[in-house]
C-alpha cells in the first residue's frame, strides 16, 4: 500500500467511526448491505474511469453509456425475448466497440479525450432517449428471470453480488495495473508520453487499450445498474455517474495529469464517497447538501495532496543543494 492509500484508509475509518458514534443505525446489517451494494455498483465504473485517467485521459460518457447499454440490455430481453446470456454478449460487444471508437478518435484523429467523450455523453444519452421514445425500458409485469436476477442482483450470505463482482474486478484490475507489462505501460504513457515513445512503447495501442478496458467495465456496470433499478429511464438513469467515477479516482490518488494512482486508492475513494452519502442521510443533513459535502471533502483531499508534492519537490531541491555544498566540487 502506498502512503496515500494509508492516509485515505484512515480517513474512511475516521468518517465511518464518527457516523457510527452519532447514529448507530450506520452499523445495522440492512444499512451496511445497502451501502455495500452501492459501493459495488459505483465501484465498477470508477475502476473503469481510473484506467483512462492514468493515461492522462478522461472518460465523460460513462453515465450515458450506462443508460444506453441498460436500455438495450433490458429491451433485448423484455421486448425481443433474447436469452439473457446472448443479450449480455451483445451489449458487451457494443461497449467494447464504443471504447475502440473513443480510442481511435483520440489517437488516430488526435482529438482531445475531453471533447471526444463529451460528445459521447451527449450522443449516447440522446440515442437512449430516442430509442425508448423518451419513456422507460423495463421488464413487463410478472416476467421472471431467476438465474439472471440471482447472479446480478442477488445476495450470497447477505453479501450483494454487486460487491462480489466489484471485489473480483478490483483484484483483477490491481494485478493488471500494478503487476503486468500493460499496467507499467499505462503508467509510463500517462506520466511522460515522450519518454514512453523513446523507450519503444507503442503509445497509440496502449491508449486504445485503456479506453476499451474502460468501456468493457462500464458495460458490466451498466448491466448491474439495469438489474438494480429493474427499469431504465434514460433521461435520468446514470446521470453524472462519470463525475462520481472521476471523483473517486481523484480521491484515490489518480492525477488528472496521468501516471499516478493505485487501484486500492480508487476502491477506498468509492467507499469514502458512499459513506459520505450515507452520512448525509443518517445525520439528518439536508440531502440537498449532498453534493456540497462530497465536493468539500474531495477539495480538501486534493489540497492536501498538492501540498504534499510541493513538500517533496522542496526536499529534492534541498538534497541537490546539500550535495553541492558537501562535495564542494562543482558538478555542472
Amino acid at each position, binding site marked *: 500500500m502506498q502512503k496515500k492509500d494509508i492516509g485515505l484508509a484512515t480517513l474512511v475509518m475516521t468518517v465511518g467511526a464518527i457516523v457510527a458514534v452519532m447514529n448507530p443505525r450506520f452499523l445495522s446489517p440492512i444499512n451496511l448491505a445497502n451501502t455495500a451494494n452501492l459501493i459495488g455498483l459505483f465501484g465498477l465504473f470508477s475502476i473503469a474511469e481510473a484506467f483512462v485517467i492514468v493515461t492522462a485521459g478522461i472518460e465523460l460518457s460513462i453515465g450515458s453509456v450506462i443508460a444506453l447499454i441498460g436500455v438495450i440490455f433490458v429491451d433485448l430481453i423484455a421486448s425481443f425475448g433474447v436469452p439473457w446470456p446472448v443479450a449480455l454478449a451483445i451489449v458487451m460487444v457494443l461497449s467494447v466497440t464504443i471504447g475502440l471508437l473513443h480510442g481511435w478518435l483520440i489517437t488516430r484523429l488526435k482529438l482531445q479525450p475531453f471533447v471526444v467523450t463529451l460528445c459521447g455523453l451527449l450522443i449516447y444519452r440522446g440515442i437512449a432517449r430516442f430509442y425508448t421514445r423518451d419513456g422507460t425500458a423495463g421488464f413487463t409485469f410478472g416476467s421472471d428471470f431467476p438465474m439472471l436476477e440471482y447472479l446480478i442482483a442477488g445476495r450470497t450470505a447477505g453479501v450483494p453480488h454487486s460487491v462480489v463482482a466489484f471485489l473480483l474486478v478490483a483484484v483483477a484490475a490491481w494485478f493488471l495495473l500494478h503487476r503486468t507489462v500493460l499496467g507499467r505501460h499505462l503508467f509510463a504513457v500517462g506520466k511522460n508520453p515522450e*519518454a514512453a515513445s523513446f523507450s519503444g512503447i507503442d503509445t497509440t495501442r496502449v491508449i486504445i487499450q485503456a479506453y476499451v478496458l474502460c468501456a468493457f467495465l462500464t458495460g458490466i456496470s451498466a448491466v448491474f445498474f439495469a438489474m438494480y433499478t429493474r427499469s431504465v429511464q434514460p433521461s435520468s438513469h446514470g446521470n453524472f455517474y462519470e463525475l462520481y467515477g472521476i471523483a473517486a479516482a481523484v480521491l484515490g490518488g489518480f492525477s488528472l495529469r496521468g501516471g499516478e494512482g493505485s487501484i486500492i486508492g480508487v476502491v477506498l475513494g468509492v467507499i469514502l464517497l458512499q459513506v459520505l452519502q450515507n452520512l448525509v442521510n443518517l445525520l439528518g443533513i439536508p440531502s440537498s447538501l449532498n453534493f456540497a459535502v462530497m465536493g468539500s471533502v474531495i477539495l480538501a483531499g486534493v489540497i492536501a495532496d498538492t501540498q504534499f508534492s510541493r513538500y517533496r519537490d522542496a526536499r529534492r531541491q534541498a538534497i541537490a543543494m546539500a550535495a553541492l555544498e558537501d562535495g564542494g566540487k562543482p*558538478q*555542472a
Partner: protein
Amino acid sequence: MTAYRQKDISLDLLGITKVYPGAIALNNVSLSIRGGEVVGLVGENGAGKSTLMKVLSGAIAPDEGHIVIDGKEVTSLTSARVHERGIALVHQELNPFPNLNVTANVLLGREIRRGMFGFLDQAAMERKVAPILARLDTRFGPNDAVSGLSLADQQLLEIARALSIDPRLLILDEPTSSLTLSETKRLLDVIRQLSADGVAVLFITHRLAEVEEVASRVVVLRDGRNAGTLGCGEITKDAMIRMMIGRDVGQFYEKAEHDPGRPVLELKGLRTKAYPQHPLDLCLRAGEILCLTGLVGAGRTELARALFGIDRIEAGVLEIEGRRLVGHSVPAAIAAGLCLVPEDRKTEGLFLDFSITENIALPSHAALSRLGFVDIGAETALAEASRRKLNIKTAGLGRAAAEMSGGNQQKVVLAKWLAMKPRIIILDEPTRGIDVGAKAEVYRLMQALAADGVALLMISSDMEEVIGISDRVAVMCRGRIAGTLARDQLTEETILQLAVE
C-alpha cells in the same frame, strides 16, 4: 513613463547559483553591465547562458546570489518587474501570437486605451509601432498578419516587441540564428545606435564574428561558471574559443585504438523532416565511435530522431547490417539493435517520478514478463546487475530517478539500453550537465562497448570530448554534413571551420 528610464542602467549579478535536482546549471556566476555597453555573452551549448537569461528575466529564481539594479538589491524578479525597470528580452525561441496582427503582438500587455470604456486605440498603437518597424527596416507593416511571417520576420517582430518598451537594457538571445546576412547587418547597426543612446545591450550568440564586430566586452561561461572576460581590443574569435573550451583537458580521454569492422548503419541519401532539402550519406562501422558535431540547430538531434524512428524519414535509405529498414518506428529500431540515449534526459530519457528499477526495466519488460505479468524478481535482478556494472550511486534502487545526480541519471538511461544488448547506440550529448567523475565513467564505458564491437554514434558540442574520444568526426552545418574528419585531422580549428560555414 517611469522614473527608471531617466538614467542609464547599472546591473550586477553577483555569485548566482542555480541548482536543479541532478545538475548544477549555474555555479557562482557574476556579470555586470552598464548603460551604453554592448556585452557579448558566449559559451558552448549547456554552459549556462540560457539559465542566466532566465534568472535575469525573472523566469526562475536563483538559489544563491544577488541581483543589484541601480545600486539596489532586487530579491524577487518577475517579468512584469523586469519590464518596469526597463529590461527587455528577446528569447531564442520565437513565440508570437499568430492569431493577432503585428501591432497587437508588439504591444501585447501594453495596449493603448482610450475613453471611459477603455477601448483599444488602434491608431495610436499603430503610430507607436510604425517607427520601430522602420528602424529595423522590416518587410512587414503594423497591420500585417503574423501567421504569414517567415522565421526571420518573426525574429524581427520579437526584437520590435523588445524595443517597444523603450529599454535601458536589451537582452538578445541568439537573435540572428534565422536572419539573413543583410538583416543581421541591419540589426548590428541598430545595436550600435542603441548603445550610442546609452542603452546597454547583452548579446548572446554562437556567431562569434558578430560578437567580434559589435561587443565592447565579452563574458565567457563554461560549465556553468565564469571562464573569463575579454575587454575591448582583446576580443578575437580565437581568444573566445580558447576561453570557451578551457585548458584543463585531456587527462581522462584514453585514446584506445579501435578496429572498425564491417558497416552496421548506413544512410544513403536520407532526408529528415527538419531539413528535407539535404540528403545525408553516412556510414557507421562496428567498434567505431563516430562523433556528429556542429552548432545548435545544425540538424544533429533531428537526424538522431529520424534514425531511431521518432520522426518520419522523408526519403532515402536506412540500412542496418545491410538490411534496409522499411516503415521505420521506434520498436522496429530497437528490434534491429539500435537505441538512442536522448539529448533531454529529464523529459525523453527518464521517468523522473518512477523508481530507478522501473526506469531500467521499462524497455526490457517484454523479455522479463511471463504471460504479460512483470517478473518483479527478474526486474530487480536486472537493476541490481546494472547498478554494479555501471557503478550507479544511489541510496536504493526503489528511489525516484529525480533524486539522483545528473551523472547517475545518465547511467540509468544507459543501463536501460544496455539491458537490450544493442549493436548500435546513438548518444545525444551524453555528458551534458554531468560531473567530471561521471563523465570519465561514461567515456570508459563507451570505449569498452566499442571494443566489444558495438557501433557508437555520439552527438556532442563539447570540443574536448569530440577530439578526445572520437575515431572519426562528421561535422554538420545547417542540415547537411559539411565534412568528415579522420582522427589525425582533429583539431578545434578544423572542426569549427566546418561548423560555422
